[in-house]
């Protein structure tokens, strides 16, 4: 099997699993309790929080553990909207956010009277900064822009966005679920007030995430109950998850330079081979301002789900932005936002690498893709029309 869907989730690193295991069967005490093994749990949480804070240049007490990226995004938006409603009801975000942001915005719009502005992106998926700044009103309380896009891998200018937000005295939240541990992010340098992240995207465990909340930001509890997480997120802590997340974050930061340099080399090899050897395809997303492991290509005249099933039969795991994989009739909102027509959006393929993928793996994958694309095109009425047009019929 060749696993090329690391933007969906990653393999939990062995050292992460190893670090977590004692906190299931040995140090299983509730961190809020008084006895010795509970103290072990509490220490483990403190350590995990420190490991994560270090990666971001944050203070440990600014890291609030959650159940994952979606919860963090929900919390940041809903709680900010509530806490700052006396100041205004306007939130600025983008058209290419994850659904955890977009659907939360829709909820706030419909049920809570929020006004949301969705900023567009250029053909590479980079947020238009002029449009963003022009959208700011005295009512604007929050700007939420993802650090890097999950589908096309485009890295956003979060430093510039943070500067704009600060100049206008507006809070800045970034969904860094894909970016944390993949590219360097410093919350002070980028003026980030809130940041969402998820453990399982960086070889950590599933079911654990965090929201970074800058000291001084007045957002309230999202889950009410006990006094955990400085009374802002009740519920007994996911101790093994936090331990694993801490180790994964520390590991991701430690190996980042070497790992991503290798990934970029293999990624560009993959992209170049596909673009030069398969006609009628295009790279989606920015060629340079791009996550180290992301390759997203649209193949004309074919549909993504068919491609995925055939890749799966060859032992290759990938994903697509086609409607059939989204459970609706519309293809990916991200691909439409960068201006792709529907038929090209349906024919998209996302391959996201890990450090384990070699050029030899890529060679195999490219040969399979070539054969499958050929086969699907030979069955496609759109390709038939295209060829007839070429022949001047």
């Amino acid at each position, binding site marked *: 099997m060749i696993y090329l869907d690391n933007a969906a989730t990653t393999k939990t690193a062995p050292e992460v699993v190893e670090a977590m295991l004692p906190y299931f069967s040995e140090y299983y005490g509730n961190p809020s309790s008084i006895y010795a093994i509970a103290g072990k749990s509490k220490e483990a949480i403190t350590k995990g929080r420190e490991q994560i804070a270090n990666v971001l240049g944050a203070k440990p007490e600014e890291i609030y553990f959650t159940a994952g990226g979606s919860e963090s995004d929900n919390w940041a938006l809903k709680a900010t909207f509530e806490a700052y409603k006396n100041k205004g009801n306007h939130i600025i975000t983008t058209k290419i956010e994850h659904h955890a942001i977009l659907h939360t915005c829709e909820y706030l719009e419909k049920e809570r009277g929020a006004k949301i502005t969705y900023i567009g992106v250029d053909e590479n998926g980079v947020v238009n900064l002029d449009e963003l700044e022009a959208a700011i009103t005295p009512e604007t309380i929050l700007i939420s822009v993802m650090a890097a896009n999950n589908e096309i891998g485009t890295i956003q200018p979060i430093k510039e966005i943070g500067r704009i937000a600060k100049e206008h005295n507006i809070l800045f939240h970034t969904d860094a679920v894909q970016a944390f541990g993949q590219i360097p992010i410093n919350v002070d340098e980028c003026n980030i007030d809130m940041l969402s992240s998820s453990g399982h995207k960086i070889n950590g465990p599933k079911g654990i995430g965090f929201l970074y909340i800058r000291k001084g930001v007045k957002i309230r509890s999202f889950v009410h109950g006990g006094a955990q997480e400085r009374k802002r997120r009740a519920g007994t802590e996911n101790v093994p998850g936090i331990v694993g997340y801490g180790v994964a974050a520390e590991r991701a930061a430690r190996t980042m330079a070497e790992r991503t340099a290798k990934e970029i080399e293999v990624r560009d090899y993959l992209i170049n081979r596909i673009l030069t050897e398969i006609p009628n395809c295009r790279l989606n997303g920015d060629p340079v301002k791009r996550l180290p492991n992301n390759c997203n290509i649209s193949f004309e*005249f*074919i*549909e993504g*789900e*068919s491609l995925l*099933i055939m890749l799966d*039969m060859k032992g290759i795991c990938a994903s697509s932005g*086609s*409607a*059939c994989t989204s*459970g609706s*009739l519309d*293809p990916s909102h991200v691909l439409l936002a960068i201006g792709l*027509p*529907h*038929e090209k959006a*349906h024919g998209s393929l996302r391959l996201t690498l890990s450090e384990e993928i070699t050029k030899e793996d890529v060679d195999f994958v490219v040969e399979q893709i070539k054969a499958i694309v050929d086969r699907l095109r*030979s*069955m*496609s*009425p*759109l*390709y*038939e029309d295209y060829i007839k047009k070429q022949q001047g019929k």
Partner: protein
Amino acid sequence: MYSEKVMDHFQHPRNVGEIENASGVGTVGNAKCGDIMRMYLDIDDNGIIQDCKFKTFGCGAAVATSSMATELVKGKTIQEALEVTNKAVMEALDGLPPVKVHCSLLAEEAIHAALWDYAEKHHIKIEGLAKPKSDISEGEEEEEY
């Protein structure tokens, strides 16, 4: 997610291709919703469908339903072919996931569109056949199933 029959027809689609100078050709669906089917019919003087081929742009279910639809109409009379409904196609494939039911509707429509083209070319009227509603030549705005 798919039945074995669907996977079989997706991996080994029957009757893929074109028919030169076909008696009738019908294209349905649109690229917007991600499925386009084109059906070619070769109909003899006795009104028997001698051959049927297809080309499809779409998901696994779209390919499988096209393939099955060609199998079901081959050797049939025009009237019998009209009775090949989306339900018949689905049953022959041992069912489809709910989100893919529209693919089987498209297969039924593709047969109808090809028959309609045949009728128009031969200036005949086929009893019980209505003008296909989702031919891509009619434009972008098509109804969703």
